[in-house]
């Protein structure tokens, strides 16, 4: 009989964060995603130690080499080792992906939450500004912002972040609008909760699901966006390695040397896949209704 009580007691001892982590650990796909992201972050942090060659040193004797024992993933048009460039590139790409999405998520999320919660004229003002941003093609907007701020990694992240703000604002506003009319919001108000507490404690946790999915996809599009900018010379300056720049650099040789585009492409794909798995797992782990 006493054994029945133990799970209750042990669950009480864990905090809410550990509770979510334990549930996350039950999903193999999410763990797979988390493992890949760990590997990527590890590569990015310890790039100097693990990469076999310098990422920028040219070796014109070994141009366009296909994968071999010396160069595991082959070399590019200047004879640079693709594996080393990928490892160093993880630094920039992960930074751009996460920080740009972070900027977009925080700004867009707050704006969307405010306009969904208060509605009325404030909502109208915020959403019309978002409409203006949305009416400008995203790439053009990013180019304009980087051109105004000057090309650098930080400005690139800010620009990509700002250009994604309206998307998040709209998603958050939509889910806040639907949660806001639920009775438990009224119940919270009757209990005396302040607006801020209602937004933070009741509305945001309940409108997380679409936002988590959007941000994991958003990291992917931020990486690609930054790659596009690198391609036209406004982002990462060559010869610094960056996945998107490698992808577009190898593009012109794709018929003869497909490995030059294949590996950066695979790296981007793997990152995004891992983020999606993790995002899905996180969304489910955060929902107490799916707890078994």
């Amino acid at each position, binding site marked *: 009989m006493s054994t029945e*009580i133990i799970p*209750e007691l042990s*669950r*009480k001892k864990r905090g809410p964060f550990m509770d979510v982590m334990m549930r996350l650990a039950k999903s193999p796909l999410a763990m797979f995603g988390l493992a890949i992201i760990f590997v990527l972050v590890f590569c990015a942090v310890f790039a100097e130690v693990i990469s076999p060659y310098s990422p920028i040193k040219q070796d014109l004797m070994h141009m366009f080499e296909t994968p071999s024992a010396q160069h595991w993933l082959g070399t590019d048009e200047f004879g640079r080792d693709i594996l080393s460039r990928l490892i160093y590139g993880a630094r920039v790409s992960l930074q751009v992906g996460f920080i740009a999405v972070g900027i977009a998520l925080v700004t867009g999320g707050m704006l969307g939450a405010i306009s969904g919660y208060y509605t009325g004229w404030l909502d109208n003002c915020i959403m019309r500004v978002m409409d203006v941003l949305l009416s400008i093609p995203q790439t053009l907007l990013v180019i304009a912002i980087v051109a105004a701020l000057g090309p650098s990694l930080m400005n690139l992240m800010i620009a990509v972040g700002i250009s994604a703000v309206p998307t998040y604002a709209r998603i958050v506003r939509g889910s806040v609008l639907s949660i806001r009319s*639920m*009775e*438990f919001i*009224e*119940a*919270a*108000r*009757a*209990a*005396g*909760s*302040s607006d801020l*507490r209602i937004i933070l*404690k*009741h509305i945001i*946790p*309940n409108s997380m699901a679409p936002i988590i999915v959007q941000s994991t996809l958003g990291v992917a599009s931020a990486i690609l966006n930054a790659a596009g900018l690198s391609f036209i010379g406004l982002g990462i300056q060559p010869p610094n390695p960056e996945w998107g720049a490698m992808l577009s650099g190898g593009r012109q040789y794709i018929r003869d040397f497909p490995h030059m585009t294949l590996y950066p492409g695979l790296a981007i794909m793997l990152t995004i896949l891992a983020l999606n798995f993790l995002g899905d797992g996180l969304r489910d782990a*955060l*929902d*107490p*209704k799916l*707890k078994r």
Partner: protein
Amino acid sequence: MDGAYIRVENLKKYFPTKRGMLHAVDDVSFEIMKGETLGLVGESGCGKSTLGRCLIRLLDSTSGKVLLKNADDDGCIDITKATPSEMKALRKRVQIVFQDPYSCLNPRLSVWELIAEPLIVNKIYSNKNEMRRKIRSLMDTVGLAERLENSYPHELDGGRRQRIGIARSLALNPEFIVLDEPVSALDVCIQAQILNLLNELQKEFSYTYVFISHNLSVVRHVSDRIAVMYLGQIVELTEYRELFRSPLHPYTQALLSAIPLAKLDVNRERIILEGDVPSPIEPPNACRFAGRCRYAKEICRNTPPALREVMTGHYAACHFAKEN
């Protein structure tokens, strides 16, 4: 009456719609005594819930007053005009239990967190242990087992969820609770449990209730006095036995005749109401029930009847209501 604990004066709540003003609550006045249960009945959409929410200012009223007697002196405070800081203090005195126990609890909070919320936001306890004791005792009061404290609402049945809702509203030791159809979403045997619980709590803590329902037999079971609403107005208000014995308003008469009786040999006349409830948007200046009333005369279509005291303590809003 000076003994009134809450006095509602000419309370109105209009909602603007595209087709005109929707008169959800239209010029309602009544009094509630300390420690009594006022039943509020009426069909769906007649403004019962809106009235209940205006009473505790979950909705801002269009005009009128809701005067709540102060706890310490003889003065009153008008809830409809309370400032935000006054309102914060009032939230501890007036509470509500919601109709739907499925949607009135945040699905992401555990039972413990749900009951703790009113205590946390009003900063009742600085000491964690005291708060823990209070939550335990609240769970005990409403009949929730301690082992459920880490459960989430979706894991519990409707009755238990409604108990959480009740525990939340009791947490701040209120004086006045609006019960907005607290049992209409529950099945019959759980209804009885919850009603008994509410009754016991009232006896123990002398709460004042407004009990909103569309179910006359439930209201009869719990109320001291009953107010019947029709299309945003109170048409009859009296002590509960009196209402069932001698209803004065033709609408109340029709309602009472529709209560099913579990007797085969009783032959009573059923009053069938013809037609629909008229639209609450820009209603005509007349008796709102005139179109469906079998006694309606010319005067009913021209002059709206006032709620008047036909017999001692028995109010009705009908031109033809009289002592019998």
